[in-house]
C-alpha cells in the first residue's frame, strides 16, 4: 500500500513542539515526528497514549523476583542443603539482596528488549531516516496526506509561525519508508 506524506523540517525544539500541536489540533494525521534527542513534552504534543512499557517492567520484575526466590530455595534448602551458622535452610532474609538484584536485572533488561520489539529494532537493521539531519540538528514532522481531510493550503498556513526550513512531498510503498 503506498501512501503520500508531507515531510516538514524544522530548526528548533520550540518550533517542532508548536507545529506538532497545531497540526494535531487541526485534525490532521501525524505519521511520526523525528528529533535528534528526546524533546520534553513531544509525546503530549503528538497526543500519544501513555506507554505500556511500565507494565512490562512491573510484571517481569515480579516474575524475576519469584523465579529467584524459588531458585534460591531449591539450591539451599532442597537440592543441596547447607548449614550456615546454624540458621534454618530456608532463610528468607538471606535471599533478599540477590532477589532484589535479579528483580532489577529482569525488569531493566526485559523493558529494553520489549522496547526493541515494539519499535521493531534489532541488531543489523538498516536505518531508514526521513533525513540524515534528524540525527544531528534538525527536527522533522511527517504529516499523512492519504487522509481525506488533508488540505495543503491549510497546512501551510498552520505551519507559518513555526519557521519551516523545508517542505517535501513523498510517496512510499510498503511499511517502513520514512514512517
Amino acid at each position: 500500500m503506498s501512501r503520500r506524506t508531507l515531510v516538514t523540517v524544522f530548526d528548533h525544539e520550540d518550533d517542532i513542539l508548536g507545529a506538532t500541536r497545531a497540526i494535531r489540533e487541526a485534525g490532521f494525521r501525524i505519521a511520526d515526528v523525528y528529533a535528534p534527542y528526546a524533546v520534553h513534552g513531544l509525546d503530549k504534543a503528538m497526543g500519544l497514549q501513555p506507554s505500556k512499557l511500565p507494565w512490562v517492567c512491573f510484571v517481569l520484575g515480579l516474575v524475576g523476583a519469584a523465579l529467584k526466590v524459588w531458585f534460591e530455595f531449591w539450591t539451599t534448602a532442597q537440592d543441596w542443603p547447607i548449614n550456615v551458622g546454624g540458621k534454618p535452610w530456608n532463610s528468607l532474609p538471606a535471599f533478599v539482596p540477590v532477589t532484589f538484584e535479579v528483580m532489577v536485572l529482569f525488569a531493566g533488561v526485559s523493558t529494553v528488549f520489549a522496547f526493541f520489539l515494539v519499535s521493531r529494532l534489532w541488531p543489523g537493521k538498516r536505518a531508514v531516516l526521513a533525513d540524515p539531519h534528524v540525527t544531528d540538528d534538525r527536527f522533522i514532522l511527517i504529516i499523512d496526506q492519504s487522509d481525506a481531510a488533508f488540505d495543503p493550503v491549510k497546512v501551510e498556513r498552520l505551519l507559518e509561525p513555526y519557521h519551516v526550513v523545508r517542505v517535501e512531498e513523498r510517496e512510499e510503498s510498503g511499511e517502513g519508508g520514512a514512517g
Partner: protein
Amino acid sequence: MTIPEFQPPAPILRLVKVLAGLGAATLAAGLFLAPERAWMNLLLAAFYLIGLCLAGVLFIAIQYVSGAGWYVAFRRVPEAMAGALPVAALPVLLVLVASASIYPWAHAGGEHGGAAFWFKDVWLSPLFFVVRALIYLVVWIAFATAILRTSRSQDSDGDLSHTRRNVRLSAAFLVVFGITFWLASYDWLMSLEPEWYSTVFGVYQFSGVILSGLAMITILAVWLYRLGPLRGFLTAEHLHDLGKLLFAFSTFWMYIWFCQFMLIWYADIPEETSHFITRLAGFWQPVFWLNILLNWAVPFLVLLHIPAKRSPGMLLKISWVILVGRWVDLYLMIAPPFVGENPVFGVWEVGIAAGAAGLFFLAVFRTLRHAPVVPVGDPYLEESLSYHN
C-alpha cells in the same frame, strides 16, 4: 507580581492552638500520673519535631548545592519548617532537663550491666551529654537562621550574590549536619539501650527524617495551593517531582532498614540481636510489620503509577501515611525499653502526639507570615514556574 499573603483559616488556627494546649496539659498530667509514659512520648515528640524541621533545612541545602531551580516556587514551605527549628528545640531541651529519668545509663549510676567500655562511660556522662546536645541545637539553628535570612533579603533586590552565599552556607551545613545528626541520633535514641549498638543507625535516622520531611513539605505545599497563596505557582510538575522524591526516599528508608536488620540477623551476636528480639516478640511483632507497611509498602506500590504522583489528593493521603509511619518507626525504637514486653497505646501517646502537631503547625504558620509565600527575588523562579518533566 503580587503575592497573596498567607492567612491560616480561623478554624484551623483554633484547632492547632487547642491541640498544642491539649498536648501541654497531657504532658503536665502525665508527669504526675504516668511519668515513664510521659517521658517516653516527650522524647518521641521531640525527636519527631526536630527531625521535621531539620528536614526543611536539609531539603533547601541539597537544592542549593545541586544548583536546582525546580523547587523555588514552593521554597518558602521548607523554609517555614526550618524557621520552626527554635520552637522544635524546646521539647528537646525538656528531654535534656529530664535526661536523668529518661536514660538508663544516667539513672542506673554506672550500673547498667557494668561498664562495657571506658569510652562509653565517658561519652555517656550526663554533663557531656547535655553540652553536646546544646552544641548540636545551636549549630543547627545558626545555619537555619543564616540561610533563611539570606533567602529573604533576596526578595527585595533579586541579587545573585544571595544565591551564591546560600550555596556556600548549604555546603557547610550538609557536612556539619552529617556529623552532628549522626551523633545526635546515637545520643538521643540509641543510648536508650546502652548495651546495643548499630553503626548504620545514623543513616537509618537520616532516611526517616528526610522521608517524613518530604511528606510534610508536600502536605504544606498542597494546603497552600488549596488555600490560595500558591495558586498559579505550584504546578503538577512540582507535585510529580515531590512524588518521585517520596517514592525514592521511601525505598531508601527500606533499603537502610534492611541493611541494619540483615547484618544483625546474619551475624547473630547476642548484644546486637537483643534489639530485634524484643521487637519481634509478642504484640510488638504486628507493630514491627506495620512499620514496614506504612513507610515503604504502601507508598511504594501507590507511587509507582505516574498519575498518583501528579494528583494532589493522592499525594496528601500517602504523605499522611508516611507521617504516621514515622511515628510508628520512632515508637518502635523508643518504647520497648520503657514499657517492656507489650506495646501500649493510650491517652498519653495520643495527647502528646497531638500537642507536638499543634506546636509544629503553630510555629510553621508563624514563620510563613514572616515573608512573601513565594521567593519573588530568586533568579531561578522563572525556571521553576515553566519547567516540565
